[in-house]
């Protein structure tokens, strides 16, 4: 079983289904490396063999997925698994000098974003693809009013005059549910609450009617009730404008409720992709199963007498510098830890049922 072959097959199957036409974005075999001063160790040999020198940590490894028009695609995983690195690679905002895309393609409107010049990319970034960042308080510029910050994007991308842009900014603030937008546009970010700041971030992101919105943990810093409102807002905008959303979250509940398709990431790799309902009702990858089991459920019946305990995934997420061989999850896996094949050969992501992908030797239909 050759790992490279299976990846090719997988890519081929995407092309074969002729769904590429309906795809807003497809990411193919994306690998992102972060440079580090750390000593290269055994786990680095793959990165090293690509000739990138010492100390390259693979942050994203062979990630392939596609997002259809008007779809909410959730990328779920624990911190450090490469979710944000994937998003930044799509936006071409990876910190230069610290990281780079090692290989792969990001196809958007028939063009590979990775081959565009910075000038061409600037025309797309913020107008066709835009991003909502995780922490609104630190992402907004504290020395400009929120109106200025929204109007800037409109002026740059839509060739409008300052007055017109300012009017548009107020209209967008109203659209994202901010009362009295003309007055709020004159406020500085610190005057707004966390929920309002996030609304401003979203207003900025949708000001040029993007076709793809990347929302990186848009509600993590917010309260439950505000979170529900922000997610409602994103859902409404998708329905009105027909835009696609790449929703990055670590909250499985959010993914379950809001996304059409959920992809689970572990140790820089995608381990499972499926329709959100299917994935959560019947997860096939042991990591997804473990995550769902370790989640306390609201109003779940007590298990009986004695001390109630949550089921856990043993161990911790491996460091990117010291990844285990074979399947990256095998040391923590309940079924695969004793299997020689899981320990030696890494399973590639493969379609196991129509519309369902998994990277596990033991997933039903994998072989």
């Amino acid at each position, binding site marked *: 079983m050759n790992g490279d072959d299976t990846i090719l097959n997988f890519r081929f199957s995407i092309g074969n289904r002729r769904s590429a036409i309906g795809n807003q974005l497809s990411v193919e075999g994306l690998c992102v490396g972060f440079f580090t001063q750390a000593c290269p160790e055994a786990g680095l040999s793959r990165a090293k063999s690509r000739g990138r020198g010492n100390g390259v940590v693979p942050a994203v490894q062979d990630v392939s997925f596609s997002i259809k028009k008007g779809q909410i695609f959730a990328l779920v995983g624990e911190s450090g698994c490469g979710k944000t690195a994937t998003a930044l690679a799509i936006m071409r905002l990876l910190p230069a000098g610290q990281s780079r895309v090692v290989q792969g393609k990001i196809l958007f409107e028939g063009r590979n974003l990775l081959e565009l010049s910075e000038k061409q990319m600037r025309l797309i970034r913020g107008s066709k693809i835009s991003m909502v960042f995780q922490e609104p308080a630190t992402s907004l510029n504290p020395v400009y009013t929120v109106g200025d910050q929204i109007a800037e994007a409109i002026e740059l991308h839509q060739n409008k005059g300052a007055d017109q842009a300012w009017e548009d900014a107020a209209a967008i603030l109203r659209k994202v549910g901010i009362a009295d937008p003309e007055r709020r546009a004159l406020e500085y970010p610190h005057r707004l609450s966390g929920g309002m700041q996030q609304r401003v971030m979203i207003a900025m992101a949708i000001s040029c009617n993007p076709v793809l919105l990347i929302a990186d943990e848009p509600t993590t810093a917010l309260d439950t009730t505000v979170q529900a409102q922000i997610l409602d807002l994103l*859902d409404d905008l998708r329905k009105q404008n027909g835009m696609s959303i790449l929703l990055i979250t670590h909250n*499985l509940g*959010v993914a379950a409720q*809001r996304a059409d398709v959920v992809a689970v990431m572990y140790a820089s790799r995608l381990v499972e992709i499926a329709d959100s309902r299917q994935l959560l009702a019947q997860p096939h990858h042991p990591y997804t199963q473990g*995550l769902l089991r370790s989640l*306390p459920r609201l109003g*779940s019946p007590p298990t009986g007498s004695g001390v*109630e305990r949550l*089921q856990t995934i043993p161990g*911790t997420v491996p460091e990117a510098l010291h990844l285990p061989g074979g399947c990256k999850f095998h040391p923590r896996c309940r079924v695969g830890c004793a299997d020689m094949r899981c320990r030696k050969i890494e399973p590639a992501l493969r379609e196991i049922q129509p519309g369902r992908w998994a990277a596990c030797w033991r997933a039903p239909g994998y072989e």
Partner: protein
Amino acid sequence: MIGKNPATSCGAKYSSYIFRDMGNANDYLLTVENLKTYFPVKKGLLRRTVGHIRAVDGVSFSIRRGQTLGLVGESGCGKTTVARTIARLIPATAGRVVFNEVDVLSADRNNLRQLRKDISLIFQDPFGSLNPRMTVGSIIGEPLKVHRLATDGDLTEQVAALLSKVGLAGDHINRYPHEFSGGQRQRIGIARALAVQPKLIICDEPVSALDISIQAQILNLLKDLQEEFGLTYLFIAHDLAVVDFFCDVMAVMYMGRIVEQAGPEKLCRNPLHPYTRALISAIPRIGVSANCRLPIADCQLPIQKSQIENRKSKIPVGCTFGPKCSLAGPDCLRQPPPLAESSDRKGHFVACWKC
């Protein structure tokens, strides 16, 4: 602390509703009665106090020995202020806190020293709450030395024993906090809290900064330690599912007051207060559609106007949730509802005129 204290005037109203069937007072390790913590609002060149923010405004509860009380609510509702006031890290404005038959708020130096040993805290941020320049050994050893629980000879031994209790290896003792992951650091924080052999541990959002799989490990660890040492927890969290799993009694706070209190199975399955209902329905859950949510008028929750009280209007006006509540009538805006036991559900306390 504050000259003319507005808190005393509207005090007795909330008195002991909860303690009606409390039986032997000895069963309770911690009793909080009508606790109020107000922060002054200062303005102008002379920094004159122009009003007060009612961060905690008449909170009463009690925790049985060996049990866990969960305090939930959104950010800014006063959960942490309650915890810090109980630990005497912030001065209280009014009320009474009785811990193990000792009045905490009026404890003198000697009593306070004993209290600091009996009540310890676990903090939310595993990155900010450990001194980066101290080794794990000295972080955990410091409380042992301060309270003279260990001699120089057996200090290392005791620290190693604590480390193994929380699932860390003995050779971690000479490392610095930055060498650990978030979950491991939280374990160090737990070991530090355990070092003084406390009776009560106040856990202020101990798992909210952790990933799901690590969160489950830490919750299980806290449960095991509770069983082993007979600990009592005051558990603060904003995640209702975590509190539902972890606690024996659950109290929901809204703007400085407890609006509902009951066992988790009652409170999560059959919430009575309109705020609790809206809060629970807003939680994204697996297998529940986003559309079956209850509306909540406008949920921006910065410091509310009614929480700041200025010199002109000293009278608190009605239920704090009233302006956002779909059930609110004219009564609700006139007088704050007391936390009272529901007539048809024993042990379920709710502060609502309409329930």
